[in-house]
């Protein structure tokens, strides 16, 4: 039955996963609007983290500018919707295309000219910052004043135009998160996935084995960018507003990558666990603080910083690998590396 195993999980692992999924599907039955919003945020970060993980976790290319793909995706779909009345599902295709093109340009420039490691990370930040300042000056999308989608009270959920109640958005992002998980699983098991891991472990050795490292690194960036753009479209239609100062900001990029780092880089469950841990803890901290009547704007970010500090110092592999050991979900030797 090895074909049926998801991510090299043992049967009781698969049972746990099924339980988690069932819980998430049933959550809107119990959850109030606030809790649902938190869950949406968690799944959003799980999804975006999964997309980032393809680049860093699988192929070993550190991107610190993923906000650019979120922003481009969001702005593309929102602009098509506002200016031409084109619905988000068609806009999504355009959004993915734009983000993929942008990823291809960044990847091409970086990899063709041998920009790697730290320099590559800085290049990704520079592009995101470039986009932030650029969008600050594009009048067509509201420039720095922000770009707004029309908001109205919706009596029913219009899935085709993504206008409706939080429950609808919840299921949309749940489906996206599950799809991203499955896609990443398939990618990891594919020929390309093994090439990526070879590049991650030792790029020169990979090249010596005849892997076209330029091409596969580029694929990683492009796929990751396209997936991240979907998160941007979701963001735009869920929050109904886009500000260059927010969506392209470097702290957005860092938020995206915190989940997978805390959960475990290069693992399939890392981004999900990281998103649950981080957003869950941050929101509960918010709750506790507001219960005491405290309103400290930077506290959440400091908390993120401390979590990150703790994880990189104490659990360099993230939370998932030791947790997996604890739950006796160790993959068999054959699947060892990709878990």
């Amino acid at each position: 039955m090895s074909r049926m195993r998801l991510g090299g999980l043992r049967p009781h692992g698969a049972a746990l996963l099924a339980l988690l999924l069932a819980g998430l599907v049933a959550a809107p039955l119990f959850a109030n609007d606030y809790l649902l919003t938190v869950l949406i945020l968690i799944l959003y970060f799980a999804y975006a983290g999964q997309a980032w993980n393809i680049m860093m976790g699988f192929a070993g290319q550190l991107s610190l500018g993923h906000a650019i793909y979120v922003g481009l995706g969001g702005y593309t779909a929102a602009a098509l919707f506002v200016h031409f009345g084109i619905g988000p599902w068609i806009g999504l295709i355009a959004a993915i295309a734009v983000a993929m093109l942008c990823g291809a340009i960044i990847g091409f420039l970086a990899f063709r000219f041998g920009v790697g490691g730290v320099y590559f990370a800085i290049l990704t930040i520079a592009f995101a910052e470039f986009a932030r300042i650029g969008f600050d000056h594009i009048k067509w999308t509201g420039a720095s004043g922000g770009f707004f989608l029309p908001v109205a009270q919706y009596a029913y959920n219009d899935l085709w135009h993504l206008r409706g109640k939080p429950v609808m958005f919840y299921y949309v992002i749940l489906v996206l998160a599950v799809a991203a998980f499955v896609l990443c699983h398939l990618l990891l098991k594919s020929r390309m996935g093994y090439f990526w891991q070879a590049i991650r472990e030792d790029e020169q050795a990979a090249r010596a084995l005849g892997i076209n490292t330029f091409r596969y690194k580029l694929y990683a960036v492009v796929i990751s960018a396209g997936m991240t753009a979907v998160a941007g479209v979701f963001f735009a239609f869920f929050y109904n507003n886009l500000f260059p100062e927010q969506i392209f900001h470097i702290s957005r990029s860092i938020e995206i990558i915190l989940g997978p780092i805390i959960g475990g880089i290069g693992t399939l469950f890392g981004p999900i666990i990281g998103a649950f841990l981080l957003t869950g803890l941050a929101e509960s901290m918010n709750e506790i603080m507001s219960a005491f009547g405290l309103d400290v704007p930077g506290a959440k970010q400091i908390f993120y910083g401390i979590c990150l500090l703790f994880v990189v110092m104490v659990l360099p592999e993230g939370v998932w690998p030791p947790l997996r050991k604890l739950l006796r979900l160790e993959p068999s030797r054959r699947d060892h590396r990709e878990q």
Partner: protein
Amino acid sequence: MPAGIYLNVAIGGLLTGLVYGLMALGLSVIFGVVRVVNFAHGEMMTVAMYIAVVLFAALKLDPLVMMVPIAAVLFVFGYALQRGLINPFISRPEHSQFMLLVAVGLILINALLIIFGPDARNVQTSYSLDSFLVGPLIVDATKVYAGTAAIAFAVALFVFFKFTMTGKAIRACADNYTGALVVGLDVKRLYALTFGLGSACVGAAGAMLVMLIDVTPQLGPGFTLLAFIIVITGGLGSMPGALLGGLLIGLTEAMAGIFFTPSAKSMFSFALLVLVLLFRPQGILGKKAS
């Protein structure tokens, strides 16, 4: 507009660029020796700027006078940071070091945000509005003082690395880590010292810059990026390169501000970074990697 205005702006940009160069020099020194990318560089600079703001607001101490004490405070901070947090990470993978310093930066920004709030602060000295008339040119006095101080600090650092035993020992660590260990150098202490010196550059630059621009907690990441752009443009590991890069970026920003719009000026720095990375990855004065 008459040509004089462009020349005025260009000189202002070059003088600001010297301060940028000093900040970037700190980054270059740290990366060149410790091989750790200080991703909290800009955040440390905002810390220095706030120290200058507080000293000026509370005790009327001129940032120009406080440059050396502030640099000393940042030296201690950098020394402790290297000793306490970064040392165990020396042999860890790059992204792991990166994350560590991103975390430090995140904590610094938001600690400043909690303490000082999001509003912009600045320092208005008695000579804030003074200027020198040089022929047809009007040069902002504060910028002249700041630029001169930045050069003095950079020269002092250069002399230290070139002529003192400790400076030579640090350069030895940078050239050959194993060799330095073999001849019995206390590499950990020298690394901490280097990180402290790099931080001191940031401290001095911050004390100067607070007289030129307003400070907010959110400035940090932008300055980190700016420092990187300067160092990469000038050439990593080259001390004159960092200053040259600073001049170039200062000039670019000033010219972009006058020809286009000031809010778009950093876009031109990014464009410059992309061009340098593509066509001369080792930087203008950098040596080609072997």
